[in-house]
Every structure is written in C-alpha cells, then in structure tokens.
C-alpha cells in the first residue's frame, strides 16, 4: 500500500508524524507514571513540584505538542485542496448502489463504468457525487477519501506519479451489494491518455 502520488504521500507522512509523536508522548507519560510511584525521600519543595510536574509537564508540554501537530495537520490539509493549475484534468464520479460512473471534461460524451482513466503525472480533480445514498470515493494509493453526497458535489484532487492500475473502494457502507462495490483507476502515460480520449471504446 505504498503511496503512489503526492496527496497520498502527504497523508502517509502526516500519519507517521502523528504516530511518532503519539509514541514519544506515550513513552514519556509511562516514564513519568513510573517515577510517580517511587518512594520520595526528604520533604519536597511543593511549589517547585507543581511548577515542574503540573504546569510544565502536565499542561505546557501536551499543549505545545498538540499545537504543533494541529498546525502541521492544517498545513497538510491546505496542501491537499485542489488549487488552480492549468495542468489539472477534471473528471466526474457519480456513485449509485453499487457502481461508479465516470465522465470526462476533456471528452464530455465519454463515460466509463467502475474504471476511471486518468493521465499519470498530472493533477486530476474528481467531482464526486451520488444519485442515491452517501458513498465515499477512495483510492488509497493516490489520495484520501471524500464523501459522495446526493445533490452535492465534492472535489478531490488525486494524482498518480506513474502509469499503472490502482484499486479504488467506496469507503462508506451502503447495504447489500457493498462487498463488491469497488472500482479501478488506470493512469495512462501521455500517449495512452490521448489514445483513451480519442478511442470510442472503454
């Protein structure tokens, strides 16, 4: 499940940063918990203890860590949004139980079922909606998830570094046929993308 595009890479990095931060904090808290059970010797300086253990380690330290993680998460979130880019390609994804229909701005009359064709190495803005219930569009190796909501269009930017085939899922349970509710993304090289747009077949 290695990331195969910039958005998925950013999300994977965010996940690792969060995990490392959580593990370090958990380890520190466990050490402090262990220390708290140690028998104390001489009478301690109570004011200094409050300053060190409650204010510094109990309040300031977690607040600083959470603030840094929040800021990092917000920056990554901003980076993932679709921004104006002349290279970007626009496609539409419409979900229904239990199939996806994809259409392409570059060739409006063309639609595909359960197979999304994209050019590799170019950002692709997927306008996601649904015609029945809420679904969720997710190509784990290319980007995060986004909900497909009836009567509303959400836009998700995906990008594949290299030509290839990538598995996609609906990440929202939608009833009886959900277990087979998947799709495929085929990323083409430039020539393959041109051929796809010219070709009349799927």
């Amino acid at each position: 499940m290695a990331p195969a595009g910039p958005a998925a890479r950013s999300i994977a990095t965010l996940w690792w940063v969060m995990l490392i931060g959580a593990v370090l904090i958990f380890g520190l808290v466990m050490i402090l918990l262990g220390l708290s059970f140690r028998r104390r010797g001489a009478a301690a300086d109570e004011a200094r203890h409050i300053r060190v253990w409650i204010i510094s380690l109990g309040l300031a330290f977690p607040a600083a860590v959470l603030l840094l993680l929040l800021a990092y998460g917000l920056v990554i979130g901003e980076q993932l949004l679709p921004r104006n880019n002349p290279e970007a390609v626009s496609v539409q994804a419409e979900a229904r139980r239990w199939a996806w229909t994809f259409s392409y701005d570059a060739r409006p009359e063309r639609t595909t079922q359960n197979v999304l064709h994209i050019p590799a190495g170019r950002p692709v803005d997927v306008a996601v909606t649904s015609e029945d219930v809420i679904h969720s569009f997710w190509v784990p190796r290319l980007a995060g998830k986004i909900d497909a909501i009836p009567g509303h269009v959400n836009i998700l930017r995906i990008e594949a570094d290299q030509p290839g085939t990538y598995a996609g899922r609906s990440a929202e349970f939608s009833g009886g046929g959900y277990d087979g509710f998947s799709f495929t993304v085929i990323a083409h090289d430039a020539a393959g993308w041109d051929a796809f747009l010219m070709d009349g077949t799927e």
Partner: protein
Amino acid sequence: MKDILRIIIAPLVWLVTFTLVYGLHGVLCGHDLTTLMIGKIPVARVLLIAAYVFAALVQLALLAALHAPRLASRYSFVRFVSRATGWVGLGATLWTLFPVVTTSSCGLAM
C-alpha cells in the same frame, strides 16, 4: 447555585459559540457564500473572523468577571476552580475555532 454557574459558565459559553461559529460556517458553505466579495473584501472570511473575535471577547469578559472580587465566590475553592474553567473556556475558544477562520472553507482552496 451561583457557584455552579461560576464554574460551568465559561465552558458552557464556549459550547454555544463553537456551535454558532461552525453553524455560520455551514450556512456560508451551504449557500455558496464563501466566494462572495464586496469590493475586495471576502464577506465569508470577514464574518467568520468577526465571529471568532466576538467569541474570544466574550470569554475574556467572563474571565475578567470571574477574577473581579465583586463577582467572585466567597469560597476559595470555587474561586480557584471557576477561574481555572474560565481559562479553559478561553483556551478552548481560541484553539477549537482557530481552524475555521484560518483555513480554507467548504473544500475550496483560499
């Protein structure tokens, strides 16, 4: 009863302002108002920032009231706890409403 109010008022007001600011955010998104400009002023952004500042000012006013001798409890424990929850309310307001006024809205890049 007044002492309980002193203790919970700041978190309670945070709860209300949090709901109102995110509700405003939802209304702006739902009615496609995030791109509305008056001259060069982005209306939605200004409204959200104004709501954020208002929420912070309300919390500051509460904190000042909780520190004022005239309004403080006669019990030192209640004074300590109510002032602590006052700071919590201010911190929670600044912290949790910060993203909605500084980041992009409705999935659209700023």
